């Protein structure tokens, strides 16, 4: 049986280095997929390029150490969009959602669990504006 699990970390300030733990259900045997999102205030349609949000490492204590690391960018990477169109404006202009690309997908991993704790380490990389946002870690767990 596969169960989805969501962990939220509140990121409160610029450049913060944050350690945290994710408590999983006791009957979780394996992590089979991961998805990371962050929702900072962003103006990527103005600067035309996606920008860095933060770096994340996830670790299984004692057993395997770091099994996952990820560089989080603004939401464009969610849509498999490397460069916006040259005349792109606010994708939500006129109330129409015209951001485009593909479905969100989870990244497949294979991490056996002998503990119900995952340790995480996150560094915020937004220096140009006020950082206050949520980092969300989605896990698909095999029970």
């Amino acid at each position: 049986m596969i169960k989805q699990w969501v962990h939220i970390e509140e990121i409160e300030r610029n450049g913060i280095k944050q350690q945290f733990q994710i408590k999983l259900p006791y009957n979780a045997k394996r992590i089979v997929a991961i998805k990371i999102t962050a929702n900072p205030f962003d103006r990527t349609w103005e600067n035309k390029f996606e920008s860095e949000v933060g770096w994340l490492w996830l670790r299984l204590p004692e057993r395997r150490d770091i099994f996952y690391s990820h560089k989080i960018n603004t939401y464009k990477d969610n849509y498999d969009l490397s460069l916006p169109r040259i005349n792109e404006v606010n994708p939500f202009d006129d109330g129409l959602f015209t951001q485009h690309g593909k479905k969100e997908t989870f990244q497949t991993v294979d991490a056996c669990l002998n503990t119900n704790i995952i340790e995480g380490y996150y560094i915020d990389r937004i220096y140009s504006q006020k950082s206050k946002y949520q980092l969300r870690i989605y896990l698909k767990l095999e029970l």
Partner: protein
Amino acid sequence: MDTYKYNIIKERFDLKIENPNETVKGEFELDKNAKYVQGILITSDRDELLFYRGSQKMQLNDKELFPENFESRLLMAGLNVAPDDRAISIGNVESGNGRLEVTYKDQNHENARFTPYRVSIYTFSIVDLETTLQDD
């Protein structure tokens, strides 16, 4: 031949979000012929609010499809996605008593100021797993 058996049953359920930071729960009943739910899609009349502010928990017949705090933006699709690719596949989940529960949570975000908006949940279901057009 019973043509309804070959249809994909498409249904829409709406939630109204009237206040910022509110949690709205909706309980809906699927069509009695919708025995297996294959896909789900979320849209809104204010997509930017749904994208930045929304998250939801979704349960079908007490089976959890998406856990609490699962962002709505992960279930959205833009106009440039081919219509046939837009819904999120959830496999063939038995609808059982056909009761779909959605708990939608609105949360403040600096990119999207609140205004009352609608959240629409679309479900795509089939009648029978075995039935194909070749059967008859």
